[in-house]
């Protein structure tokens, strides 16, 4: 009996500390500044425990029954605290308020536990033994919890499941108290039913923890998420807000349906409209099918080869109703061949020639992607163009990443291209840059296809003019063995976003 009694003290003490640690950790993860978060969480938690202890004197009768219900309350509030806070962070506004409300609520309840338990056990032990035993096991529980938390719980269970697991422990202690003290609780049926319910609830919570966090994560995107999938290569998310559809790849915005026509018209027509005889076109990247949509406006084009890494992306663009509506079903058009491959090795093996190439890769955020912006890559690209061929390259923002942009221009020059830099304004991204690489003299086209929403021959010609705040700056070429581009990019974008 004795050991079992004090084991409950040990367990509830461990639970109490775990909730406190979880709240502190979660606050640090979400808000940063871990010293501040841990100090204030621990402070308010201990203060709330004091309130609980003070309140305990007002509980006079039916102590066991009260104790069991308090345990159940701790189980529910503590067990679901992380899930609640995480969801609250994603959806709500006043996260700090919620955080401290939850911390104080758990603190008060936990503060009630030990005084109540001591009073329940009052008659069974000498007072000095009682105090000694209870406090010993209380502190032992705290030690156990503080070791268990970083070593086992966070890495193996995660915060959401850890909290629920300890909620289950609280509920189990409640249930078993109804047996331990059955003399004091004659009609324990309802109490036990309550315990069973809480246990079932937490058990279900454990099973669905993954879904809870995923649901909350969706709300990180401002708009309604209409599609989300983790592929081998990236996380694809489509959002919709009124008539605005946005595509995010691994959290990076790819387009907004409201202004993507500006981007894609600028990407395709300055080059392709200048090549009246173009028959074979290559698109590298651009799995959304929007560049292909523009290319298909030229009846002379007989064959479009699109090479995109991710089969799930091109599949989505070919089948999802919203995307099909946007790209006009371009990827399933007869003239279009979709190939899913890594572009550089693919181009290395490919033997065909193209009149026009669109290079629409993710920005050079790391050295792997940076390879797609090197002299070696552009040389290989040049080898696949016909004598009068052109290549249009998306080249990040000349305004926000000026040296990055001019580095791409310099790299293409080093690779043997005559480089024609130009830019356009795309509201979702800001001022955006492109480079047209030519193997023979290039002049902007005097005509563009009918039905464009953005470009006219005059605006097209004006895109090649750079205002002084985006004009050329010296930059080294980007080479496989010296990727200066990744360094420029990192410096310039982090200067803006930090």
């Amino acid at each position, binding site marked *: 009996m004795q050991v079992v009694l004090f084991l409950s003290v040990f367990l509830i003490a461990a639970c109490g500390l775990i909730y406190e640690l979880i709240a502190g950790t979660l606050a640090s*993860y*979400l*808000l*940063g500044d871990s010293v501040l978060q841990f100090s204030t969480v621990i402070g308010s938690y201990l203060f709330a425990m004091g309130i609980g202890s003070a309140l305990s004197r007002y509980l006079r009768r039916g102590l066991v029954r009260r104790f069991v219900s308090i345990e159940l309350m701790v189980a529910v509030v503590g067990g679901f605290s*992380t899930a609640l806070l*995480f969801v609250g962070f*994603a959806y709500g506004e006043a996260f700090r308020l919620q955080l401290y409300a939850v911390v104080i609520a758990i603190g008060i309840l936990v503060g009630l536990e030990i005084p109540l338990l001591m009073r329940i056990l009052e008659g069974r032990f000498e007072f000095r033994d009682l105090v000694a035993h209870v406090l010993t096991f209380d502190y032992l529980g705290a030690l156990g919890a503080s070791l268990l938390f970083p070593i086992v719980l*966070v*890495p*193996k269970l*995660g*915060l*959401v*499941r850890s909290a629920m697991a300890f909620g289950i422990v609280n509920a189990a202690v409640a249930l078993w108290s109804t047996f331990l003290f059955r003399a004091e609780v004659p009609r324990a049926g309802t109490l036990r039913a309550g315990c069973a319910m809480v246990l079932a609830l937490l058990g279900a919570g454990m099973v669905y*923890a*993954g879904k809870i*966090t*995923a649901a909350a*994560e969706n*709300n*990180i*995107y*401002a708009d309604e998420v209409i599609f989300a999938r983790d592929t081998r290569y990236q996380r694809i998310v489509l959002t919709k807000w009124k008539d605005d559809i946005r595509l*995010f790849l691994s*959290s*990076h*915005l*790819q387009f*907004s349906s409201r202004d993507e026509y500006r*981007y894609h018209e600028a990407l395709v027509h300055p080059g392709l409209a200048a090549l009246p005889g173009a028959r074979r076109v290559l698109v590298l990247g*651009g799995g959304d099918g929007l560049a292909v949509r523009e290319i298909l406006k030229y009846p002379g084009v007989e064959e479009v080869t699109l090479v995109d*890494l991710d089969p799930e992306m091109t599949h989505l663009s070919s089948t999802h109703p919203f995307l099909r509506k946007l790209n006009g079903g371009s990827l399933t058009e007869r003239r279009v061949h979709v190939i899913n491959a*890594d*572009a*550089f*090795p693919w181009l290395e093996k490919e033997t065909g020639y193209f009149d026009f190439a669109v290079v629409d*890769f*993710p*920005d050079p955020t*790391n*050295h*792997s*992607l*940076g*390879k797609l912006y090197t002299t*070696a890559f552009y040389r290989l690209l040049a080898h696949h163009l016909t004598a009068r061929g052109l290549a249009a390259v998306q080249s*990040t*923002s000349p305004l*926000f990443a000026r040296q990055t942009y001019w580095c791409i221009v310099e790299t293409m020059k080093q690779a043997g291209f005559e480089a024609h830099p130009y830019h356009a304004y*795309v509201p979702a*991204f*800001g001022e955006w840059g492109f480079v047209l690489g030519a193997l023979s003299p290039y002049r902007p086209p005097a005509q563009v296809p009918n039905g464009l929403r953005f470009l006219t021959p005059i605006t097209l010609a004006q895109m090649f003019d750079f205002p002084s705040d985006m004009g050329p700056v010296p930059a080294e070429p980007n*080479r*496989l*063995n*010296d*990727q200066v581009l990744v360094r420029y990019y990192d410096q310039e*974008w982090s200067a*803006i*976003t930090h």
Partner: protein
Amino acid sequence: MERDHALSGRETNGLARVPRRGFLSAALVGLLRKTDRIVSGSFVNESDELGHRLRSRGPFRTPAQRERVPVVVVGAGMAGLSAAWRLEKRGFRDFVLLEMEKQAGGVSRWGENEITAFPWGAHYVPVPGPHSLLIRELLADLGVLMDGKWDERHLCFSPQERLFLHGRWQEGIEPELAATARDREQYRRFEERMREFRASGAFTIPMERAGRSPDAALDHVPMGEWLRREGFDSPYLNWYVNYACRDDYGAAAAATSAWAGVHYFASREPDDKGPLTWPEGNGWIARRLASRFKPHIRTGSVVFRIVRESARVRVFTEDVEFVADCVIFAAPTFLAPYVMEDAPPVGGFEYSPWLTANLVVDRPPQDQNSEVAWDNVIYDSPALGYVVATHQSLGTVEGPTVWTFYWALAEGPAPRNRRLLLTTDWAYWKEAILNDLSRAHADIRQRVARIDIMRMGHAMVRPQVGFLSSAERLRAAAANGPVLFAHSDLSGFSIIEEAQYRGVTAADRALARLGGRR
């Protein structure tokens, strides 16, 4: 196509920053699963048994056949292959290359699995300076150097090197994280001293190009002692120099000749950012040379006796006795006394025991905020770190790969380390390697499927204090006769340029002898 950032202006709130998210949900849901995997593997390319037979002089079969070949090259490592390269370039094709292993290449051997080719030893060539004409000629032959420009694809891709220091990765191997003003000042002064040495013209590649033998005074000071004398006491600088000695010579700075230590830093004048490297390391070069000389190469041919007889030299393998005019002995020089009676004394030649391991890493470890470099080094590790065989891939997707892990048993006397290397089992080294790597990659045991280990008792010659200026080395290097020595150990340190130089020099001497006779 990443075009969002601050410009879209529609992030939920400033706190919802993306990188933290992934980390957060992993911690919340507990996606990490930790069960130790079973790692397979074994010792591979074992040749110590053969070596011991050579040294105990048998037993060997008497050959049943006899062949007359004007030039016999013993050893198809980089020196032997270079000798063949030179002979062929000068229009001479009457030679055989005898290799005791099943594969040519020597220290530049390579392996291949379903993921990639990988090195078993030497894995790079520093970009040769404008004066290293021989190695430039070879690399031009192989298409690496075209019209005076290095082909970008053979230069090591960015990021080249990183160092795990104080719990995180930094770019480059020279320790920088938390370096003090004193450390920086000593780096600067050290560099200045090396510039002076470079300007002196005494430290060249190949070493003989300097036209003088190594300065005996400097050669008789240990590198560690030289640092002390010069007032270099920065722990970072000392670690760095010691690492360089372990990496290039397999010996600690305290046991390395200061001349060799200085040579490492003062001999190079690269004309591009390098080094040159390939998935199979210098095996890329070895395999091209080996395929070019395939008709000449006899692998699995152990030369157990070389006998000089008037104008001829008889070279015995278990299958064939070769009768030659000239023998180019491109095997390690310390083996000479075991196979020939009139070998020069080689007691001063010491070699460093090494271990290389190839690890099949089927899932890349989770490195936060650091991209895997080509060469990855852990500060204060007894080993040398690892290189990534797929680093030169043009692809953008990180997939399964092979890491080549290098470990020179540099601390303490070589014979003791050799015994340790040969008396311990595979599991011992597997654990040692995983423990070492786990300092930088907590999840390494979940990421490795296989570890194959190659042990080399005499991996590379050691430029011990006084060795480079020793009469013994100078005599062996100058030896001219029907048996010509050609191994890189004649230079006192084992780099590809020296192996090539020694091989080429021996080939030229052989042709001079033959020409004189005809």
